[in-house]
């Protein structure tokens, strides 16, 4: 293997062994690596024997995951492996899908959020979500941010300051401070997505779920969102679903690899968790050969 050129920054054109592959990723964002215990200590959120069905279709099979506080956890895997389904179980967004049934437990600070006495609306107030396609409300930039705090009844003395703080945390303030009263639809796709992150931050959630937040964005906007995630990690627990393995490698602390297994009789593909470990292990020393095949590009 030839020596890497000094200017090598991108992993896109890379064709080498797994070790060098990982090296190049770490070089892009060295701050992503930090000392973490092999298992999340006192995790904020845990799933046990999580099974999800859409009608008769078994979408996800027996997922056990634990999410560490102020860590970024990435869920990766090929299309149809159930990673987005798992994510939507974590704040009960799956309730809104007709015919969706969840079995097993999802505990949040040791409360099973799927028991009768739990209010799903209260769960979503604590666990915010950013979607694949930027979905700002058809309102002004200011009102997009102020909407969340208003509907959940947060006691805020100075809404202007609150909006500014949220926009600053999402690294959007400098770009929009002169047009807060203009429609959010005038922003670019990347700005809209950061607005959606700011909107979530404004409600001061505990956990932020992100469902492929960069898949509709160009590489520059993607890189800004990734920077933002690394900053937000200091105050929030982030769980992100991504198609982009380099992204998972760049930003996340832990990675869960999912795959889809076709049912022998029906041919329906059921998603299952293959391997869950520190990101550097998943990308550097995967234990399961399916993981290795996927991240080295031989499958998926």
């Amino acid at each position: 293997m030839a020596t890497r050129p000094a200017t090598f920054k991108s992993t896109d054109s890379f064709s080498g062994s797994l070790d060098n592959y990982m090296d190049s990723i770490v070089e892009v964002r060295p701050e992503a690596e930090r000392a973490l215990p092999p298992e999340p200590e006192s995790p904020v959120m845990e799933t046990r024997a999580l099974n999800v069905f859409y009608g008769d279709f078994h979408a996800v099979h027996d997922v056990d995951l634990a999410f560490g506080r102020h860590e970024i956890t990435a869920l990766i895997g090929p299309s149809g492996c159930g990673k987005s389904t798992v994510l939507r179980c974590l704040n009960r967004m799956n309730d809104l899908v007709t015919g969706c049934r969840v079995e097993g437990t999802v505990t949040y600070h040791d409360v099973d959020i799927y028991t009768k006495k739990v209010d799903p609306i209260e769960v979503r107030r604590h666990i915010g979500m950013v979607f694949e396609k930027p979905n700002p409300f058809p309102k002004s930039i200011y009102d997009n941010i102020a909407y969340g705090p208003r509907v959940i009844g947060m006691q805020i003395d100075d809404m202007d300051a609150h909006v500014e703080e949220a926009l600053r945390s999402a690294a959007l303030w400098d770009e929009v401070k002169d047009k807060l009263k203009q429609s959010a639809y005038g922003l670019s796709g990347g700005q809209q997505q950061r607005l959606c992150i700011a909107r979530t931050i404004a409600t001061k959630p505990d956990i932020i779920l992100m469902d492929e937040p960069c898949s509709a964005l160009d590489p520059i906007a993607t890189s800004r969102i990734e920077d933002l995630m690394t900053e937000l990690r200091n105050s929030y627990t982030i769980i992100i679903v991504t198609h982009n393995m380099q992204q998972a490698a760049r930003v996340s602390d832990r990675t869960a690899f999912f795959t889809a297994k076709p049912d022998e009789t029906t041919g329906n593909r059921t998603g299952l968790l293959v391997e869950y470990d520190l990101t550097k292990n998943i990308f550097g020393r995967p234990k399961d050969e399916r993981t290795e095949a996927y991240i080295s590009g031989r499958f998926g």
Partner: protein
Amino acid sequence: MPSTTLEYTRESVQAAVSTGRSRDRNSKSLIFLILLWTSLFFGIMVLLVLIVSTAIDGAGRFDSALITKYDSTLFPERTGFRAGILGTLWLMATTAVMAVPLGIAAAVYLEEFADGTRWYNRIIELNLQNLAAVPSIVYGLLAVAVMAVIGFQRKGIVLGGAIALALLILPVIIITTREAIRAVPNDIRFGSLALGATPLQTTWRQTLPSSIPGIATGTILGLSRAIGEAAPLLLIGIAGAVRFDPTGPLSPVTALPIQIYSTTSQSQEAYQQAAAAAIIVLLVLVLALNGLAIFIRNKFQREW
């Protein structure tokens, strides 16, 4: 090389593309085009002849007396439609007050909260489609029954007429409002719910404001259907000869279509003229309402 592959050369492409004629303009498509134009021409001509001949008939009566005077049996040439115009305005306002909130609420329930798999919701759904096609006179009968149940002896009042018209346009309003609500992308609802908003807050603060243009258009189109209706009003006993202004929801009333109907049944030529002029007034009212609907739709239209 597979036999299905075509060989494209400079010569073969030139020969095929620049033939000097267009298959767009052969005789078949020309005949088809002429047929379309004839149908269009026929439809528009019938309408135009109707409107122009009515306008010519009524030409002598476009004066202030037409809209400021009550109808007169002594002076046919000075008969006016003041009672009918004011009555129609009162009826429309009362109809809107009753039908719009009810229709929007029903549409919101069906679209946002109803479980479409339940048998009762499916029955409502099915009936709604049928109700829109029920003859208007049936709604007149229904309104008579409603007024009798509430306990009104005299039914030919603003309230009675408005109940009939509100029942008539309710299906139209519900159906158009549902379409407007359905056009709001789910992304918006999920965005709001993911912030911890309740379904009610999401409907009230996101879905409904976003569907205002569709709701307004549907409502106004419903009202412009109601404005020309005479049958249900006749059935509930709204009289043609009323010579005072309506003063409230319980006041006896007449409506422009009814007054036109009773005026045309008079034999004198002057009444025919007055009726023709009143028809034009009614047409202007309908067109104004439709114009308002288009204006609202264009002004608030949003591309998702």
